[in-house]
């Protein structure tokens, strides 16, 4: 019902809009097409998972989405701005202010303390924020590492490092988080805690996530999944938690839900301007959060993929 109501309102602009985006590498003759004619959109507040075999172009695509790589063909808009037309400075500012990156291998600077690592984006991006120091403490607190603020990253475990990297990505309250195999270098349990953290952040802040992964368990974050093969978008699966859309689309048969429209999520959020408002119904959010907290505490042994049936 909610979704239908919002149909009448002007649709909120997608955060990412890709049309026939391709990326080739190598000299002519020995070309290699890493991304080939990819078109899709990501709406504010969505979680999108990028799946695909090794070498299928996931990282390449993520680099394009983050404006790190501009040697593409086709059209790519970020926050409504054509990436091809932005100057390097404008694009860099956009990256610094609105995008948070999380990398597979963390990318922490060993010569800096944990806190200075978290503060690193403040060196470059836009206008200096007055309360940036407190903000750094906040995000460190949020990832549970405030006590280690003065330590060197080398003294931390893999999961802790990834959490520092996430804190760094969160420093400037990005609208979009781009994560390249954030759990790829972590053992299973540690990976779980990171997934839980993403779930919490998504629930709390409504941040948009695009996550490259091999791991099916990330699907419990509820986003839709895009499958890449040889640089092409071959399949799109609806988000498992997109209950309302699914309910609407399949008329109650949520477990079989196929035609989930990612748009409905964002239209649903059109009237929810506050970043902290829960974006799913209360029961679901509670379940997710409860789980997330448990996962944080116990390393995540319970099967935590929230199924549509759970909600029903």
């Amino acid at each position: 019902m909610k979704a239908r109501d919002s149909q009448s309102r002007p649709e909120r602009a997608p955060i990412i809009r890709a049309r026939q985006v391709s990326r080739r590498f190598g000299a002519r003759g020995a070309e290699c097409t890493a991304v080939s004619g990819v078109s899709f959109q990501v709406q504010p507040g969505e979680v999108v998972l990028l799946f695909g075999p090794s070498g299928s172009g996931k990282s390449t695509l993520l680099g394009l989405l983050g404006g790190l790589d501009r040697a593409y063909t086709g059209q790519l808009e970020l926050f409504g701005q054509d990436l091809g037309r932005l100057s390097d400075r404008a694009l860099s500012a956009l990256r610094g202010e609105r995008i948070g990156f999380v990398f597979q291998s963390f990318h922490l600077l060993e010569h800096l303390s944990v806190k200075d690592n978290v503060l690193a984006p403040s060196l470059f991006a836009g206008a200096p924020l007055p309360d940036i120091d407190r903000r750094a403490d906040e995000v460190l607190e949020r990832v549970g590492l405030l006590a280690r603020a003065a330590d060197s990253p080398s003294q931390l475990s893999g999961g802790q490092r990834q959490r520092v990297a996430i804190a760094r990505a969160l420093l400037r309250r990005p609208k979009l988080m781009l994560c390249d195999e954030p759990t790829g270098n972590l053992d299973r349990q540690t990976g779980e805690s990171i997934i839980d953290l993403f779930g919490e952040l998504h629930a709390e802040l409504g941040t948009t996530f695009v996550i490259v992964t091999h791991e099916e368990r990330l699907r419990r974050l509820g986003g839709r999944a895009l499958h890449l093969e040889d640089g092409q978008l071959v399949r799109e699966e609806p988000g498992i938690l997109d209950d309302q859309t699914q309910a609407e689309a399949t008329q109650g048969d949520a477990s079989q839900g196929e035609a989930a429209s990612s748009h409905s999520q964002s239209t649903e959020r059109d009237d929810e301007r506050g970043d902290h408002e829960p974006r799913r119904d209360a029961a679901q959010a509670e379940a997710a959060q409860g789980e997330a907290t448990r996962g944080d505490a116990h390393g995540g042994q319970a099967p935590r993929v929230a199924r549509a049936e759970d909600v029903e």
Partner: protein
Amino acid sequence: MTLRALMVLLGRDLARTRGPLVTAGFGIAVGVAALVFFLALGLGAQRVLLGDVFPIDQVELEPQKTSVGVLSLFGGEYQAPGVGPEALAELRQVPGVAAVYPKLRFRFPSSARGGAEIFGKEIGTHEMLGDGIDAALVSDLEDSARFVDPLTTPGKSCLTDADCAAKDYCERPSDAPSGQCSAPVPAVISRYLVEVFDHAVAPAHGLPPVAGTLVRQAKGVEFRMTLGTSLLGVAPRGKVRTVKIQVVGVSDRAVDLGVTLPIEVVRRWNDEYAGEEASRRYSSVVVRTDPPSATSRVIERGAALGLVPTDTRARDVSVLVSGVLALLVLVSSVILLVGALNISHTFRMLVSERSGEIALYRALGASARDMRRWLFSLATVVGLVGGLVGAGVARLCALLADWRAAVDLPAFPFKPDSFFDFPPWLFLLATGFAIAFAWLGALGPALRAARTDPASALGRPV
């Protein structure tokens, strides 16, 4: 990127990469030290050589000697060559000419005796040479006011010296019925004369040297000059008579060997012994220029008037000093270039070591320009510190060299207190050079850093 952020980055670099950066800065410091040392030496040399030994903001022109010599072979009566009033007027018109001072050489034989006050006995010369110059030319005298024609204010009438005060004499031209009492005619002598006296004359005659502090006392030296006769003969006209001369100082403008008197006095005496014609034609003319570079124009104009510089040493020395200086600056520049290569190498290493870090910064919001700025700022710090250290080292080396020179080198004419000049702009120039060369070295790596593919941050670890 804010300045504060830049400072933070630079501070971290200096803490993290101190060794290589110090090495890079060292190369620059050596180059700058060489550059500053040589330039200061060159400036010092130019000051001593061109300022004291061969002043070059002025040029003295005289009639071409060869042509005169040939003419005099055929001429019946010897016509003294000279610079006429028309030539003076023309030279005054040359742009950049500040002043034109004619010189009048003695056109009469003379001899001199005196000096008992400082030598304890009278000394003298049978052949006294000299000239007369404008008082403005001896402005380098401590007390140039004393260098004036004593008869500017007429003295009381006299027939012999006995009619005048003890220190004065009776200036009575050969055919005049009477004269006027005159104070001794002021004279300046050359430093060269003092040197010759001390090194050649004094030892031969068992006399004390007059150089150094004695130069000052020489101002009091009085002697009597006999006009109209010398060892070589007697003047064709005029009577032999004696006047009093008092040395009032040592001047660079004084004739090398002989005495230099106020030009009015020499004009009177030339009239008396060689005729008015002789006294109207000057023996040479000193042209003072501002800027000094105008001397070349003066020399050109003089050539058209049949006048040549009396002394080409100044030009030769100037060219020599500039040439040697240019060579040394070239050597220093090569050292600086090596320093720049050194910086280039260090920065290249730094950038490739940190390509992951740079890509990360790019992903975190650093623009290509931020990265360029970062590395150029780092180069600026290295260049600035290298430049300051280099300039400081050069200054120290100069002090050391001057000290060794003061201790080890024997006194010689024009021996200066310092062989170096360190004007403030030299330090500015040095640091400017240091930074410029540091930038030169950092240019490639900085551009490379700016080009670092931010997407590469995704793939590999920092």
